[in-house]
């Protein structure tokens, strides 16, 4: 049986000035799988993700993705630092069109934080902010998740919990695209792995 491809890119090219950062990047992710992207610092992973989410506009090439059902965390999570975590998530849900406070609370619990925590995000540790960023990505139950180094700053326990979370999301039929520097995460999580090198992409397995 042919499986549906939910995310794909075809011949993406992106320049910053005269510097090519993406050179003819083509790849695809099957629905209900986890796809990993590895690559050295500066190889273009984050830029690729920004093109997929629509933040950046590629100079040429095509992206196919359903942005109405997309959750993402790219580079450091950016919240309004003076509000508590839950309030941040609710404000963001508002923009998306539907506020479901219970879903926001549930997402916060899923990433191991406390929904009742009234401290502003300013007082969160780096790992806590990262967890909140993941909660932000999953709270609206999107079909596609784009996560750029989601394990950044997490303790061992956090890494274990997130792996479990990602696998359970995949088992629910979600599609995940994850960039990571951890060979172990990639080994454990991913059905398919691409490697980026100086803006080019190649299938590894």
């Amino acid at each position, binding site marked *: 049986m042919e499986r549906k491809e939910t995310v794909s890119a075809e011949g993406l090219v992106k320049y910053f000035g005269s510097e090519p950062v993406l050179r003819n990047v083509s790849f695809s992710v099957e629905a209900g799988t986890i796809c990993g992207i590895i690559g050295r610092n500066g190889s273009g992973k984050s830029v690729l993700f*920004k093109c997929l*989410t*629509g*933040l*950046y*506009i590629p100079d040429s090439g095509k992206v196919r993705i359903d*942005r*109405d*059902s*997309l*959750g*993402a965390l*790219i580079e*450091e*999570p*950016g*919240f*309004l*630092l*003076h*509000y508590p975590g839950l309030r941040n998530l609710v*404000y*963001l*849900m*508002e*923009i*998306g*069109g*539907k506020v479901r406070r219970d879903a926001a609370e549930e997402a916060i619990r899923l990433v191991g934080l406390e929904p009742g925590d009234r401290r502003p995000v300013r007082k969160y540790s780096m790992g806590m902010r990262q967890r909140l960023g993941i909660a*932000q990505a999953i709270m*609206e*139950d*999107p*079909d596609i998740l784009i996560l750029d180094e989601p394990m950044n700053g997490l303790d061992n326990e956090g890494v274990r919990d997130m792996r479990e979370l990602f696998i359970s999301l995949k088992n629910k039929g979600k599609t995940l695209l994850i960039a990571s520097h951890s060979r172990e995460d990639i080994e454990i999580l991913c059905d398919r792995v691409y490697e980026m090198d100086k803006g080019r992409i190649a299938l590894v397995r």
Partner: protein
Amino acid sequence: MRPVKRNLVRTSCLVTLYQLRAAAADLKTCLVPGCIFVYLYAAVSPVRDFIASSGEKAAPCLFVFLFSDVNLAGPLLAGMLLFAMDAPFYGRDRLFSFLRAGRGAWVAGQALFVPVLAFLYTSFLLLAGTLLLFPGIEFSNRWGKVWTTLAMSDAWAEFGLTIRVTTNILFNYTPAEALAAAFLLVFLVCTFYGFLSWMLNLIVGQAASLVVCLADIVIVARVWYFPEWTRNLVPSAWTDLAAITSGSLKMDLAGAAWRLGAGIVLTAAVSIAVTYRSDIGK
């Protein structure tokens, strides 16, 4: 899954609201109005002295005359520029809002934020103009003895006033009308400089943009020594209702309003179009 079909107008307003929430905790949001208030407090102390010595109360119209002092007008407009200089408001904390709004609504929300900022800033100046005269204030729609004396006699020189209370404002407008007209002018000028600085940020970069806008605003203090016609070229000079009413500017209120309106539409259109076609969140 986000099941609700998004409505462009509603989503843009929510993006603007999100910007306001972000701005609410920005240090700048307290610092700029705070400094302006202290500056104004010192600058209008002669008016307070005059009111105290007259034993009368004044209609809350100080706001109308603030911009007649060219040395006050500059800093007051520069205050707005400090808010607008970051446009388009890319911050790390805006990426999540972008993902939910979509490109069109997100850029529209940014654009809506500029007049909202201008409105809030103008309201702040109006409020400051009222608070600064307490307790010598009387809420009435007649000009009353204080403003009439300042306009007709040479009391302004005696008390060292730097703002000019002119008879042609008193004769042409009721206090409420004058406040409304001055509010409109200041609001439009602030909105215009907001979009101008956004547009120049995109085209020549933030530093050059700030220099150009500041020069344009500071020149209002100098332009009074230039030939009269030059004032017609500097929008920051158009906040002075007295200059417009007396005919020292070659435009009436409606003329100033439509020129500013056209300037706003033009700069906003360029800003929006360029932002819509650019990468978000550098």
